[in-house]
Structures are given as C-alpha cells and as structure tokens.
C-alpha cells in the first residue's frame, strides 16, 4: 500500500514537473490610476496603494462552483484599465477568455477584500493579451482570435447583437482577417489604428467600423502604434524598422533601421520618440528619434539585454528603460545613464514601468518581489512581495 501511495506521489510530482518545466509563461500586466496601481500577476489582479505598497483588494475571477469539466484556471496578465466611472476592466488570459468589470467601491468583507463583478463578457474565442482601449462609453478590445470586440461599458454587452466585430478584410495572402491582435489600439477620435502579430497595420473608421486602409509589414508587430507629435502614426516591428504612416492614407516608409526586433510601443516626449529593441545574442538598444528632423538623436545606446518594455519618461525629464535581465537605466538627454538600479540575480523585467508622479513602479517576474516602487533617483520605497 505504501508503495502505491509513493507511486501516486511520484506521478503527481511528474505531472507538476511536466506542467512547470516551461518556467514562466507570461509576464505581468501593470497599470496605474490615481493612487492605485493594478498588478496582474497571473493568479490575480492586485490593487496596490502606490504610497505604501499595501494591498487594497484582489480579484482572481469568479468563485468556482464544483467541478468545472474542461474549464482551465483563469490567468491574469493583461494590464487592467479603469473607466471614467471607476470600474476596473480586467481581461483574463485563461482558457475561459472572459473579461470582467469590477467595482472597487463595493468590496467584500474578506481579509483581502474582493470587488464585486459588475459585468462579465465571455464571447471571445481567443486569449486576451491586448490591453483594451476606452473611447467614450465604448470599450475596444482586440482579441487573439482576430476580432475587435466593441462593448458597451455600462453593461459589458456588445454594442450590437450578435457581437459586433470589425469587418474582416482580405490580406495579401487571401486570408479573411488578421489574427493575434496582441496590442492596444491607438485612436485620434475618428479612427482606430490597430496592429497585428500577423504583420498587419490597419485603420478603422469609428463611425462605420469599416477598414479604411491596411498595410502589411514584413514582420510581426507585438507593440501598439503611436500617434507622434507630427500627427504621423509610428509602428515598430520584427522587421527591424520603425515605420512612419500617414494616418489618412496608410502610406508608409521606414524611418529607422534598428539592430533588433522592436517589441515595445514607442513613447512620445516632445518631438522625440523613444523605443528599444531585442537584438538576439547581442542585447538590446535604446533609440531616441526626433520626429521633426527625421533623424536619430545620436547613436543607439547598447544596454545589457533585450528591451521588451516601453521606456518611461520621468518627471525630471530622464528616460527610464527596463531590460530583460531586470536592470533599470535612467538615461538623460545626452544618452548617459544617470542612475542604474541593478536587479536581484534572477529577476526579469519585461513589463513597461509606470509613473505615479513621485514614484516609479517596476514589475518583475522570477523575483522575490513582483513590484518595486522607486523614487525619481532610483531609491527603493517599498516592494510588493512575490507569492501573493
């Protein structure tokens, strides 16, 4: 009997090993609104007080009732967004493909309070990876299944029945519509600009929901498009180029050749765009591009490892860059690192840091802490421990 029990234990351990041998499968989502940061650390979304690091509430999906055959655990790794009414919209990257809106003003009496679910949308067929975009009373949520779900923020229902999705189009390969929409769209109020992992950039009219133009870049686009100070649309891709689009026509040209694949979304600061790349086997490079002159502000700066996160412009004008190995660089206008925060040995920083005014929040995976708050010169203020 003891041997049987031992055997069962070994088999279970093997199952755990088999499940876990891929290591971390995602990086965390992080956003901030007012004095609250929202950390999506796979198992739950934690609301954290940005001043103290205290956990205000936690949400890990609906309570399961009994054995749910075929349903997988929920997985939260998309940065939550906050509506004008204060609801927190939380997409789940689990196999339930659900999206929740929770009310943080209506909390349970648990030790760590849980917000009530105001609505739940479960009409998508793929994983939620992209951060949804709020425009007025509507939520535009791109999904890995290739659809952009347009939801009414008041009740989470689609604005039309059946579910309103963006009209499909034929790409150069004859496929009906792009797939794997992984990034938050950009909008100028009239159009929605969407990028796809399947090399597509397209503009959608927000009145008609029709595709106005479509372009095919020769590489995947994991980051969002960004509207520059010159009114142009900028997109980075695996094709190792930063492309400039005319948002009216979709006409585009490459303005920067990079050394590696561009992952993160470029960030606008005055006339400049900042972005990083992942140069396989080399590390990562930081670029500063002047939209006015159409040239780089100096040579790309080589950092120790790849840059998947978008840079963050600090209140003192410095630019904070997080690299894959977890190191943080604050770079000044001349391209020098003014301070440098070494991470603990194993941690990795893939998520874009956020600023809360007097603090910078950085999220790590494979670390003793999931979140660290630093002041504007890189001194630690508090940490949010791992394992929550």
């Amino acid at each position, binding site marked *: 009997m003891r041997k049987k029990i031992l055997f069962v234990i070994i088999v279970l351990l093997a*199952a755990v090993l088999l*499940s876990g041998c891929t290591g971390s499968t995602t990086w965390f989502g992080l956003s901030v609104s007012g004095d609250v940061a929202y950390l999506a650390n796979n198992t739950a979304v934690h609301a954290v007080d940005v001043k103290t690091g205290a956990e205000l509430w936690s949400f890990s999906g609906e309570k399961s009732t009994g054995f749910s055959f075929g349903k997988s655990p929920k997985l939260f790794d998309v940065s939550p967004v906050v509506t004008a009414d204060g609801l927190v919209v939380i997409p789940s990257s689990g196999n339930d493909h659900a999206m929740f809106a929770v009310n943080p003003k209506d909390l349970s009496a648990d030790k760590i309070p849980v917000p009530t679910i105001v609505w739940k949308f479960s009409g998508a067929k793929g994983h939620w990876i992209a951060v949804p975009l709020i425009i007025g009373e509507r939520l535009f949520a791109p999904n890995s299944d290739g659809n952009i779900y347009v939801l009414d923020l008041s009740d989470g229902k689609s604005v039309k029945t059946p579910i309103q999705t963006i009209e499909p189009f034929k790409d150069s390969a004859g496929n009906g519509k792009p797939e794997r929409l992984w990034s938050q769209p950009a909008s100028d109020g009239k159009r929605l600009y969407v990028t796809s992992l399947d090399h597509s950039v397209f503009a959608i009219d927000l009145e008609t929901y029709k595709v106005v133009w479509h372009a095919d870049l020769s590489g995947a686009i994991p980051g969002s498009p960004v509207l520059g100070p010159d009114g142009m649309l900028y997109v980075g891709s695996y094709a190792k180029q930063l492309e400039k689009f005319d948002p009216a026509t979709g006409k585009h040209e490459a303005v920067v050749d990079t050394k590696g694949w561009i992952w993160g979304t470029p960030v606008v600061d005055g006339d400049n765009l900042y972005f990083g790349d992942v140069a396989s086997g080399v590390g990562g490079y930081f670029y500063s591009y002047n939209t006015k002159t159409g040239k780089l502000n100096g040579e790309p700066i080589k950092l120790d490892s*790849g840059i998947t996160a978008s840079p963050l412009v600090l209140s003192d004008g410095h630019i904070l860059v997080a690299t894959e190995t977890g190191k943080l660089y604050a770079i000044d206008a001349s391209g020098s690192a003014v301070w440098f925060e070494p991470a603990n040995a194993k941690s990795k920083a893939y998520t874009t840091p956020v600023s809360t005014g007097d603090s910078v929040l950085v999220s790590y995976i494979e670390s003793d802490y999931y979140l660290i708050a630093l002041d504007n010169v890189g001194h630690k203020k508090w940490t949010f421990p791992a394992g929550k």
Partner: protein
Amino acid sequence: MKNTSNKIQTPEPQQAQQLPQGFSTETLKTVAVVGLLILAFTNWSVVIGIMVNAMIFIYRVVGHNFGIAIILFTILIRVITWPLNAQQMKGATAMQDMQNDKEWQAIQKKYAKDKEKLAQEQMRVYREKGINPFGSCLPTLIQFPILFALIPTITYAIGSTPLSLLKLSSYAYEIQHVTSLLPLNSKFLWMDLGLPERTLLFGLSIPVLAIIVGLTTFVQTKLTMPPPSGDSNDQAAQTSKMMGIYMPVMLFFFSLNYASGLAVYFITSNLLAIVQYSMMGKVNWRNLLPGGQKQDQKKK
C-alpha cells in the same frame, strides 16, 4: 553456472577482462549516461535551441503547417531514441524473465528473511546472467533531457504568449531567418494548436483531443504491459498496472488545459510507441481484452 532460462543471455567474458579491476562495462555505461545527463542539464538552453530550430526547419519544409511539423518532429525524436527504447525494452524483458527463473525464485525463498544476503545473491545472479539491473533505466535516463526539452520546445514554437514568442525568437538561429516566418501558423485541421482544443458536439463543448490522448495512452500502456509472472509480489507488474491507470488520467488532464499542440505530440508519440513495440514483437494484444492478462498467466 548453467543458465536456467533460455531467454537470458550470458555476457561476453572477454569484455570485462579488458577493463581495469573493479570496472565493468556496465559501470562505464552508467558513468557515460550520468556524464551525458550532466552535460545536457548544464547546457539546457543548447538542447532546447537545437530542438526549437529543428522544429522551425521542419515547419518551413512542410509548408508552414505546424500540426504536420509537430508530427514529423515527434517521429524524428522517436527515430533518434529508437535504439534507446529498444535497449530499454530488452532490459525490461530480461528483468521480467528473471522473475520466472528457477534459481531466482529459489534465492527469493531461501533468503526471504535476510534482506542483505538476498541483495548479495541477487547481484551475484545478475552478474552471472549478464543482466544489468539498471539496463532498462539507463536508456530512459538518457531520454530525459529530450523529453523535458520537448514541452518547452513545443510551447515556445507555438508562441501563444508574448514571453513564449520572445523565447522562441531568442532560440532561433540567425540562419533560420524567422522574421518573416513568425508567428508560426498554429491552425491545424479544426484546431488552434496554441489553445486547448474543444469541439462542439450536440451542443456540448467536448475536449476530443484530450480524450484521444487518454485513450491512446491507455491502449499503449496496456499493449506494452509485459505478461505477469507467476509471482504475486511481482513489483514490476504492479507498477505497470498502476501506470496503465494513472498515466492516461494524468495526460488527459494535462491535455485539457494546455495548448493542443502538446496533445498532438502525445497522441503521435503513443501511436509510434505502439508501432515500435509491434515491430519488435512486444505488443500483447490480449491485454486489451478483459481478463486477457489472467489468460496469459494461466498459460504460464
């Protein structure tokens, strides 16, 4: 000493004599296997890199069909590990035959109360009959790095999350020119290989692939289960019996929640194992019938 079982081979005496005293060929094999394992696990990213690039290469060759790529990749792994599997089966059969060996049974009875003496006698019989008690374990151990690397390889190649796609890009060799290739097309038949599979049947969402994984694992373990020895305390037979129950259940639940690309790998691997065992004449079809094993036992 005369061999009491026709199936058990005696060793080549001159092999052991050429080695330094205290060293047998089996010791050398064990040292080599341990060395290989250390080499593999200390260069883990190299192992995964080779496999990821093999997968990408096959994907390109077969016209961007990831399902076919997984199947061909599984066949490739099976072919590479074929000699090891064959050796493992040979070792397992020898150990199984040993259970029916009269001398073996005699010492089991004689030293039932003296475990130390029993162990010494068992080792003596193993030596005399040229059987390595780890003969079925070592080939399995060599396969461990490949098996452990398979899951991340397929997971990265599917690239269904940003991190797995990033890892795929970091493992891909420059000569592969994967920029235009990524993301890999994960559609195969009715499935998205990056997602757990569900098929709508009669209004119900049925995990067809996970069920097939469970069934093929059950059939494979049943078919390849060695016939039981007369010994009611035969631990190998008990272990096999339990494997036949737990493995299908474990892989079924695993396939329920993970990318269906992994389920495609499990099914292909199970079917190939049945084919390999059949070709070696080791498949016991009677095991599939209720009470089939008992009939085998009676015949013995």
